[in-house]
């Protein structure tokens, strides 16, 4: 005899954990607008590389800045960069994908998809380095470099999702009701692909945070004095063996944010797509 399972729809554990972690960091980032334990630009060379203490909860970095304050503001920076980069990807990729799907099989569709493939074929990190080499390292260029590679992701995703919807009868009906392609895309397709878009957005968002940290690590991301989690790693990387907390703390912060977002994405997918939830 097999055990009987309850039929109650469970809220995925991943969702709860992901939401908790994500909101923790979002709150940290938001609080940093009005309060940080210390001014992030305040140096205190005499008290540098301190271990966590009552005065500095997470210690101080190699030029004596408060690590907690830097984590708070750095989280804010990382989130902002990743958010805008995802925005760029969705803002351009989604319309392109919808357009391609609505003209499925046309030359336009082909052109959009081929250019997507082409962007995918370029090594993203190299292009990011080139962009910053051309225009100088800055938050804006980091966003640009990360955002460009988000465009084909969303274009492809929204195209394939929209294509499968275009097979459905209610879209055919909308056409017989005299509605144009643009209107159908907005009224019928967009709301129905929103859930997978949101899931992909959380994934790209977390990838954006990782990418920003990577770019900042090689000095091409957000510029000082604005703290970013990646630059904290870069600034203190030589001290990994000597004062491990200097890189462990920002490193763990990145891991936790990305983990939170990935879990959130997974949880959302399970919640919005019961078919997948059963399999997972």
């Amino acid at each position, binding site marked *: 005899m097999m055990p009987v399972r309850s039929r109650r729809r469970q809220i995925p554990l991943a969702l709860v954990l992901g939401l908790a972690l994500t909101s923790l960091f979002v709150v940290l980032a938001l609080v940093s607008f009005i309060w940080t334990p210390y001014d992030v*630009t305040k140096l205190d060379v005499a008290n540098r590389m301190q271990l966590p203490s009552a005065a500095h909860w997470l210690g101080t970095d190699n030029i004596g800045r408060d690590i907690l304050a830097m984590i708070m503001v750095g989280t804010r920076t990382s989130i902002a960069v990743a958010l805008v980069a995802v925005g760029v990807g969705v803002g351009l990729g989604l319309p392109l994908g919808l357009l391609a799907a609505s003209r499925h099989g046309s030359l336009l569709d082909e052109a959009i998809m081929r250019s997507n493939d082409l962007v995918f074929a370029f090594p993203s990190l190299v292009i990011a380095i080139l962009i910053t080499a051309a225009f100088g390292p800055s938050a804006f260029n980091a966003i640009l470099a990360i955002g460009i590679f988000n465009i084909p992701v969303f274009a492809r995703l929204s195209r394939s999702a929209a294509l499968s919807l275009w097979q459905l009868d209610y879209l055919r009906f909308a056409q017989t009701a005299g509605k144009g392609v643009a209107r159908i895309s907005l009224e019928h397709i967009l709301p129905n692909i929103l859930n997978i878009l949101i899931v992909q957005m959380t994934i790209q968002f977390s990838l954006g945070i990782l990418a920003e940290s990577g770019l900042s690590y090689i000095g091409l991301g957000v510029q000082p004095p604005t703290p970013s989690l990646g630059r904290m790693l870069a600034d203190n990387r030589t001290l990994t063996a*000597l004062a491990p907390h200097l890189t462990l703390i920002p490193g763990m912060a990145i891991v936790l944010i990305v983990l939170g977002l990935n879990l959130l994405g997974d949880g959302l997918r399970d919640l919005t797509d019961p078919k997948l939830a059963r399999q997972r």
Partner: protein
Amino acid sequence: MRRIFALQFPTRTLAASLMLAGASLGMAQAQTSATIGMQLEPPHLDPTAGAAAAIDEVVYANVFEGLTRYRSDGSVAPALAESWDISDDGLTYTFHLHAGVTFHDGSALNAEDVKFSLDRARAEDSTNAQKALFAGIEAVEAVDDTTVKVTLSAPDGAFVTKMAWGDAVILAPESVEQAATAPVGSGPFKFDRWVRGDRVELVRNPDYWGDAVALESATFKFISDPNAAFAAVMAGDIDAFPGYPAPETLAAFEADPRFDVVVGSTEGETILSTNNKAEALSDVRVREAIAHAINRQEIIDGAMFGFGTPIGTHFAPHNPDYVDLTGQSNYDPERSKELLKAAGYENGLTLTLKLPPPSYARRGGEIVAAQLRAVGIETEISNLEWAQWLEQVFRGKDFDLTIVSHTEPMDINIYARPGYYFQYDKAEFQDLMKALDVEADPAKRSALLKQAQKMIADDYVNGYLFQLARAGVVNAKLKGLWQNAPTQANDLTAVHWQ
């Protein structure tokens, strides 16, 4: 919070295990070769066709030799030229070369090669990065195989020193084409191979004309990432890292008996370069305000972890003619604020601060920015690569402030060039330098140099931060490397294992 204290343990265990491992590592070492770490890889190996310090750091005194050479204390000694005579009017230098010197390919090095090298460097289409060194030469004549006569257009007290530069080494006309990729020189080491991006290998030149060297072979290994440099030295992959890029980790090496930490001076005056033609900065009060806003010791501690000597003018402190002017621009934020107020900037001032890649600039820049902010000057920092820095700052003069180390020796004369990137244009100073150029009397030269130092300090041309220290980590058993860096070189001629 408790948890994070536990993170400290790896540090202690690390130090302990490193000590244990040290002994066995020393045993395994092949005692006739040495691996020297360098942060930057040379783009090519022809010192007469490029400015990159890394070229000289590999080939100077090892592969290539000039008529004269620097010694580690900064003095100039004979090299290929055994001796030289100077005519009374100071215009004609007659160099007497060592007899029997051969290039690595076996061909003889004679006066014709010297003439060729000097003529090539000063030719119209020369790509020599320091062409100015040769500007004063009017003619070069090979008198016989071992005698070269150089005629100058005007007396030049520093001519023998100029010939000691890496840019003035002697090459043979038949091998000059390959100097960039497979250099053929006359030095104690022969070029063996270059694994690009990784290392250059040299082997002993058995036919060397001078004193034989102890090392049979030497490898220069290029590691740009400071963290990787740390790991490589710690792991014993590198025997010596003379220009060690991570001063913050030197404490760990000092505590470890396997290593010696060598701190010497360099010719690198690290300055907060100021665009003297920029709107606000053309006002000497603003420049003085900046000077007083800077806490040099904090920068040295914060950016260089204590390695560096404060300077108050553009001159190396180890030079006998150095004048300590640091007191004139002491840390005095209150004075800064007054000066700014007087200049009309009591409500603040925003300046750009463009930083090239080295850590003294990047880290120092953050600290300088914080110090300036404390007196009411906001800075917009942008980190630039060297290429961008050259484009925007050096050539484009599109900057307010930048931090850079001027590593050429005795380069105070750059203040006499009105078109130089910091755009200091003062006739008196230019006259001073002209006088210096033609002055051969050491006492008078010294007086002129001191006057020049004071003049630029009085004008607060740039913010003078510190003399770049040359901190190196060396295997405790490896001896004979230079402590100081009067010129950019890793002279291996005296290096040996204990």
